[in-house]
């Protein structure tokens, strides 16, 4: 695991998040993010609550295409999938051009460019909380993920890193870890 320079972290434990109103996301899509936040709050004493106010939320989530005015334009299908800023920025941007799979088994998708939304959300939340990239391939914070792949379970490396920043959730008993990927198949990036 790694941290951003200076190990920035949130100084409060109850964080809020909101979706960009312009995206008009369905409840199914929002539920994916809720599950992703839950995976982190299981192991650290932080809570994440959805709010409707994007202006006051600690974390702002939005899908954007191409240049979206933060100096890091998205590049269409595949390539870069999303990015997120270190604490206490809270900015979480996803590439609106990707073919995001929201429900069901992404590994069986007929679309070779299908990307599992929850897998990417769990990774980017790691950045929002202060984690950098890891060389541990089984970890959520490993930088790349093949299309039609699901990887949503925090690995020991992720948990050790995030607990260095925030300590452990008192209710965490260590049973939610996985040292191997939950499921992985798929292409090596759309050249199938």
């Amino acid at each position, binding site marked *: 695991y790694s941290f951003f320079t200076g190990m920035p972290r949130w100084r409060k434990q109850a964080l809020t998040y909101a979706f960009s109103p312009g995206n008009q996301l369905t409840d199914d899509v929002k539920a994916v993010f809720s599950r992703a936040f839950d995976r982190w709050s299981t192991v650290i004493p932080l809570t994440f609550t959805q709010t409707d106010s994007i202006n006051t939320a600690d974390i702002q989530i939005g899908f954007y295409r191409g240049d979206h005015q933060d100096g890091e334009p*998205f590049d269409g299908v595949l390539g870069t*999938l999303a990015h997120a800023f270190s604490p206490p920025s809270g900015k979480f941007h996803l590439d609106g051009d990707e073919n*995001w799979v929201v429900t069901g088994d992404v590994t069986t998708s*007929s*679309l070779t460019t299908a990307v599992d939304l929850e897998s*990417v959300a769990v990774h980017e939340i790691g950045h929002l909380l202060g984690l950098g990239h890891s060389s541990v391939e089984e970890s959520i914070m490993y*930088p790349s993920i093949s299309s039609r792949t699901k990887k949503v379970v925090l690995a020991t490396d992720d948990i050790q890193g995030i607990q260095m920043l925030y300590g452990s959730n008192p209710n965490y008993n260590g049973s939610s870890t996985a040292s191997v990927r939950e499921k992985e198949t798929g292409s*090596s*990036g759309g050249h199938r």
Partner: protein
Amino acid sequence: HFFPSNVSIPEDLLKNSTSNPWSFFHNLSGCHAGEKYDGLAKLKSYFQYFGYIPDSLSNFTDDFDDALESALRTYQRNFNLNVTGQLDNQTVNHVVRPRCGNPDIVNGSTSMNSGKTHNTSSNHVHTVSH
């Protein structure tokens, strides 16, 4: 675009489903240091974007130069690939994988594999006679 995994995908979307902005890099597989190949400048820009080539370098050429070889070695180390400094198939296949847009190296600093110090003393063989 949001889908459940079991939905039938529209034909026009399937046709466009192979457009990966990095798939061009497959053409660079097998390139060697010291030579020049069309498109290497783009690959250098890729590595600079993710922190493997310093921001101080610009106006990239298509030469397979020391900066690219160094970037490749660091990248290969970070992603647990064979550290060859070459554009072998294994490396190129990894480079084109979709990924997070956050850089792996910021201001030359990283805690991924390449940022870890290696204990050179481990190269010595210590023996004890019995």
